[in-house]
């Protein structure tokens, strides 16, 4: 789960990482009197916010009001701005980059730092980036900070601030179950203070039960995907014509792949999961129907999810939603015969192999 900048900064601040002073508003009426120059930052979860005009500066009340009214309610790359962070303007002497993330290849945390901050880290020469895989059992220890300040050429008081901040950033990463805790830019001010001028924090969604304070709607998800998420389905909308219901993430992906290779592009990814229940099948149909596919393919390899349960779900859904568009079913595995019998009685012929079902549904949708 991606957190908004202001949420990331709230977390940073609670761990003792210095951030610019500021506050959040949702309405121009929430503005507090100005006590100096400020920056007004749109809270959206997409990159390139500055270039898209999502960040404005103000040094008097009129400019501030103009900036706020000019940003609230507008769209940045398709996403509506409903929240602004009003922050003191800081005097930037130098911009750095630091992040801690999960490195999937090593299955360990990765810490990165660079003196080239304020730009996308991918655009920085790797030689200019300090990287170190962290042993998750010993965790962060000060020698890593000492290596980093040595790499960045920092000394004295600034180096101490950096080391202290890095140790706290690792605490954030670990205690808040982050996939990513990134500060870009990490600013050294003209006054010699080290500050997190931005915050990109991604929390492992599987850990949310122990961080119930976060509740961010993923802006990249479509309304239908959000509805599916609320109902506990893994669901991804795609731009094809064939609705897909399958069981298991791997089998569902394989089904999409097979459809695509047969030029019968899928309308969605929907994994029934490992629960054996008629209702889960019926509700899956409801979701897929909302995506309005030309035909629906159900691909089941019965194990914990039994074929007869799925068959009953299909017939129940067909009746409940009065489905007239083609439904192609493939049933294999546990209680396959019973399932086929149930469908047959309801006028649906079920395939036992995957490939004929793929071909049939592509044909039914009017494809190749």
């Amino acid at each position, binding site marked *: 789960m991606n957190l908004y900048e202001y949420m990331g900064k709230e977390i940073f601040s609670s761990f003792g990482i210095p951030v610019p002073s500021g506050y959040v508003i949702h309405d121009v009426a929430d503005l507090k009197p100005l006590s100096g120059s400020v920056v007004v930052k749109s809270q959206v979860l997409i990159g390139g916010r500055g270039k898209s005009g999502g960040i404005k500066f103000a040094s008097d009340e009129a400019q501030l009001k103009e900036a706020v009214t000019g940003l609230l309610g507008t769209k940045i790359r398709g996403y509506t701005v409903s929240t602004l962070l009003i922050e003191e303007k800081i005097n930037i002497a130098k911009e750095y980059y630091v992040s801690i993330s999960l490195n999937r290849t090593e299955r360990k945390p990765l810490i990165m730092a660079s003196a080239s901050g304020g730009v996308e880290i991918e655009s920085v020469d790797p030689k200019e980036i300090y990287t170190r895989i962290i042993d998750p059992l010993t965790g962060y220890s000060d020698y890593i900070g000492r290596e980093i300040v040595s790499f960045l050429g920092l000394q004295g008081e600034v180096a101490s601030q950096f080391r202290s901040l890095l140790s706290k950033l690792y605490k954030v990463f670990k205690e808040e179950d982050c996939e990513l805790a990134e500060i870009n830019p990490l600013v050294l001010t003209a006054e010699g203070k080290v500050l997190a001028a931005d915050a990109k924090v991604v929390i492992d969604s*599987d850990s949310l039960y122990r961080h119930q304070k976060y509740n961010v709607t993923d802006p990249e998800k479509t309304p239908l995907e959000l509805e599916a998420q609320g109902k506990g389905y893994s669901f*991804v909308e795609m731009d094809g014509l064939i609705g897909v219901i399958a069981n298991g993430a*791997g089998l569902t*992906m*394989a089904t999409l*792949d097979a459809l695509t*290779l047969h030029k019968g592009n899928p309308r969605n990814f929907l994994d029934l999961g490992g629960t054996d229940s008629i209702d889960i099948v019926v509700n899956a149909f409801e979701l897929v129907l909302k995506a309005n596919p030309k035909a629906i393919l159900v691909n089941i390899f019965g194990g*914990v999810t039994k074929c007869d349960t799925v068959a009953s779900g299909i017939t129940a859904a067909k009746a409940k939603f009065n489905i007239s568009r083609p439904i192609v079913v493939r049933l294999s595995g546990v209680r396959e015969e019973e399932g086929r019998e149930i469908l047959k009685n309801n006028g649906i012929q079920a395939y036992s192999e995957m490939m004929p079902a793929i071909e049939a549904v592509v044909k039914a949708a009017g494809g190749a």
Partner: protein
Amino acid sequence: MSVLVDKETRVIVQGITGHQGKFHSGEMLKFGTKVVAGTSPGKGGTEVNGIPVFNTVRETRHLNPDATMIAVAAPFVKDAAFEALDAEIPLIYILTEHVPFHDTMEILYHCRRKGVTLIGPNGPGVTAAMDCKIGIMPNHIFKKGDIAVASRSGTLTYEIVGALTRNGFGQSTVIGLGGDPVVGLTFIDVLKMFENDEATNKIVLVGEIGGTNEERAAEYIKSHVSKKVVAYITGRSAPPGKRMGHAGAIVEKGMGTAESKIKAFNHAGVEVAEYPVDIPSLIK
């Protein structure tokens, strides 16, 4: 001898009184697995499917368990794994989905330091056809043979194993690695085991988008694996940035694409099937 488990493997189930624990311990018994005990705090002295239930893993020590299946809810998995580690059980399989990866990292590296094998989380387990099954794979799909299968997904594994069996290709060991971004075993780990396993002559790898596990395996195969390997990769049609069911199945910043994995395997001389059902014709 098969890889990891065999006829003699003595298994306990942590969380045996839950829905999953109850159902799958019964299925494992039917498969022939020696399920010697289960645990469930406060339910010691009862039975599930005729299997004795104890309050703690420590109380099962006299039964000398060789492996445990952890089937407790995600928030309790780390504690259950630490309990198993403390009892020095040499193989830990975690069935549970949605375990925070920070927990899995801790579990994994504690397993490493104690020489314990971790399978999962969020995978179907391991089966040595027809001798022992630990996990949730359907009983009826297996046939004993010389093909080892390792996969990042569950149902797709059954599809492929089912196809192998129908075409007369039996299996030595089938391992589901798990669909999370951090899991106990990598393809390289299992390739090592399969290469050294006398019962295995050919190897099937079932990969998916996300991470670089397959690319690394391809490199490893070039120099370390003499047995025939074929593969299937799923997620060719997945839109970038979207998690496809598994927490680990996501293409991010151009990393972990199906193309990259297929290319890597081809470079290593590993044929990659277009469809799951093509695996039997490639392996023969």
